[in-house]
C-alpha cells in the first residue's frame, strides 16, 4: 500500500515538473509519434510487395505491431534503466538511492519514469482497432481482461530482461554495449516468430523471450489456436523473468562497490 501511495506521489511530482516545460513535452510526444509512424510505414512498404509473410496477412502483422506497442509503451515509461551504469554506478547516484527506505529498484523506476511514452499505448490500441476492423475480429467480454493480463506480462518480460542487463554493472566495471543491441533484438518480437529459423525462434521464446511481448499474446486475439498455449504463458514468463531479475538485482546491490569521491 505504501508503495502505491509513493508511486502516485512521484507521478504527481512528475506531472508538475513536466507542465513547467510545456514545449519540451510537446516535442517529445511528437517525436514519439513520428517514430511509430515510421515503423508502421516500414511494415506497409514491406507488404506493398507481398500480402503474405510466412502465412500471415498484412493486417495480422499490423495487429501484432499494434499490440506490441502497448506493453512496450508501459516498459519505456517505467524502465528507463538503459543508462543505469553511467548514471547510477559511475556517478555514484546509487549511494543516494541506497540511503532511502524504499526498495532501490523501485526508486529508480520512480525517478526515471517518462509518462509521455504512454501515448505509445494509445497509438498501439488505435492500430489494433484499425487492423482488427479490417480483419473483422470480434471482441468478447473476456478480451479486455486478457489483454490487460498479456500487456502486463509483456511489460514484465521486457522489464525483467533489461533489469538483468543493468545488473551486469554490479559485477563488471566496464561499460557494455549490450543495451542498444537488446533494443534491436526486442524488435524481433514484433514479427511472427515462425518466419525465423528455429534457433532464433527458440531464443526469442525461452532465452530472451521477446516473442511474449508481441506475437504470442497477439495471436490469441487473432484466433491462431496453434499459439494459444504460448499466449497464456505470457504472464507466467513475465512473472518468472521479472522475479529472477529482482533476485539478481538484490544480490547485485550487495556487491555494489560505490564510486570514489
Amino acid at each position, binding site marked *: 500500500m505504501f508503495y502505491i501511495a509513493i508511486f502516485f506521489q512521484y507521478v504527481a*511530482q512528475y506531472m508538475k515538473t513536466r507542465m513547467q516545460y510545456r514545449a519540451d513535452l510537446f516535442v517529445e510526444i511528437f517525436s514519439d509519434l513520428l517514430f511509430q509512424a515510421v515503423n508502421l510505414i516500414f511494415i506497409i512498404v514491406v507488404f506493398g510487395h507481398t500480402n503474405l509473410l510466412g502465412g500471415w496477412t498484412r493486417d495480422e502483422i499490423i495487429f501484432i505491431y499494434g499490440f506490441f506497442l502497448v506493453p512496450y509503451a508501459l516498459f519505456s515509461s517505467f524502465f528507463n534503466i538503459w543508462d543505469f551504469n553511467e548514471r547510477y554506478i559511475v556517478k555514484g547516484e546509487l*549511494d543516494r538511492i541506497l540511503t*532511502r527506505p524504499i526498495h532501490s529498484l523501485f526508486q529508480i523506476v520512480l525517478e526515471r519514469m517518462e509518462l509521455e511514452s504512454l501515448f505509445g499505448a494509445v497509438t498501439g490500441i488505435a492500430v489494433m482497432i484499425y487492423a482488427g476492423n479490417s480483419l473483422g475480429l470480434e471482441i468478447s467480454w473476456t478480451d479486455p481482461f486478457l489483454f490487460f493480463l498479456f500487456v502486463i506480462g509483456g511489460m514484465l518480460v521486457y522489464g525483467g530482461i533489461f533489469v538483468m542487463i543493468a545488473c551486469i554493472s554490479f559485477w563488471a566495471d566496464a561499460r557494455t554495449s549490450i543495451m542498444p543491441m537488446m533494443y534491436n533484438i526486442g524488435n524481433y518480437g514484433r514479427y511472427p516468430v515462425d518466419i525465423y529459423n528455429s534457433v532464433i525462434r527458440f531464443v526469442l521464446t525461452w532465452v530472451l523471450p521477446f516473442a511474449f511481448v508481441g506475437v504470442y499474446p497477439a495471436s490469441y486475439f487473432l484466433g491462431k489456436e496453434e499459439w494459444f498455449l504460448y499466449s497464456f504463458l505470457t504472464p507466467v514468463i513475465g512473472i518468472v523473468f521479472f522475479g529472477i531479475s529482482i533476485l539478481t538485482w538484490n544480490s547485485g546491490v550487495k556487491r555494489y*562497490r*560505490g564510486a570514489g*569521491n
Partner: protein
Amino acid sequence: MNDAITVRNLKKEFKAYSSRSGLKGAFRDLLTRNYKIVPAVNNISFNVKQGEMVGYIGENGAGKSTTIKMLTGILTPTSGEVIVNGMNPHKDREKFVSTIGVVFGQRSQLWWDIAVQESFRLLKKVYKVTDEQYDSHMAHVIKTLDIEPLLDKPVRKLSLGQRMRCELAAALIHNPPLLFLDEPTIGLDVLVKLKIREFLKEINEKYNTTILLTTHDLSDIEALCERVVMLDDGKIIYDGTLKSLKEKWGEGKEIEFQFLEEVDLSDLNKITASSEVKWEKDDKEAIFTAFTEDNDELISLLIAKVVADLKVKDINIKETSTEEIIRNIYDRGIS
C-alpha cells in the same frame, strides 16, 4: 547511555586489477588479469555514544568514505561487525535508513528540477513523517538555516551554500537520531560554514543527535567535535579527544620576533643559551622564530631575555595549529 555505533574488526577489501604495461601486456590482460586485494578499511573498531559529535578525519583514500558507506548500509563489509542504531545497516537497510540522516557534500539528495519544498514534501512521504511532526520540527529547521526564501526555487538555481543548507534540512526531515555528514562544508564560504556549524550544535543539544562528520576542514572539527578518530591507510591511528591530541602532538609554542636592528642567529643563541630554545631564521622577512616547550613561565623568561638585549619591532606567540599537528602525524607516522 546506549551506543549509537558499534564497530568491531571492520574490514573492507576491494579487488583491483593492475594492468600490465605495453601492447603485449594489454593482450595478456585480456586473458588473465592480475587481481590485487586492496584493503580500504583494515580491522577497525570503535564506539560512538548517543549524542556524541565525532570528527572522522584522514587523508584522501584513507578509508573515510568507505567506512561511512558501510555505516550507512551502502556497502557490505568484507568482514567484521557493524551495529548502528541497534541494527545491521546492510542487512536491514530499508528499515535502518529511516533512522539516519545522510549528507554527502558532493552529491545532492534533492531533486534537481523541482522546487526545494516539493523535494521536502516528497521526502516527507518517503520517510512517512506525519504533518504534525513535520510542522513542529521543520519549521524550526527552516528558520535556523534561513532557507525560507529558497523553498520555492528549483535546486538547480541555488548557489552551493544555499543548496548545502537545503541538503542539511532535507537530511533532517525525519528527525533522525544519527546524522552522517561527509564533507558538509566543502567549498562553502565562511559565513555559511559558521551558520551550518551553529545549526549542528543546536540540533545536537536539542535532540541529542549523534553526529559523525568527515571533513578536510579541521576548523569544522575544532568548532564542533570533542572527539576525533583519525584514519590512515585503513587503520585508526588516533581515537580520543581533540585536546589530548593537541597536547600529545602539539610541539610547544613558537615565538616570532622581528627586530629593529641587524641580528645574527648566533647572537640569539648566546642570549638564550641557558634555556632549551631552538632558533630559526626566515631569510626574506627577517623573522626569527624561537621554538620552545609550552610552558608560560619559560616563554616569558625567554621574551624578557631577548627584549633586554635587543630592540624589538614585533612579537608574536603562536600555538601549533591542529592542521599542523595532523600534517606532522601523517608526515612522520605515529610512533
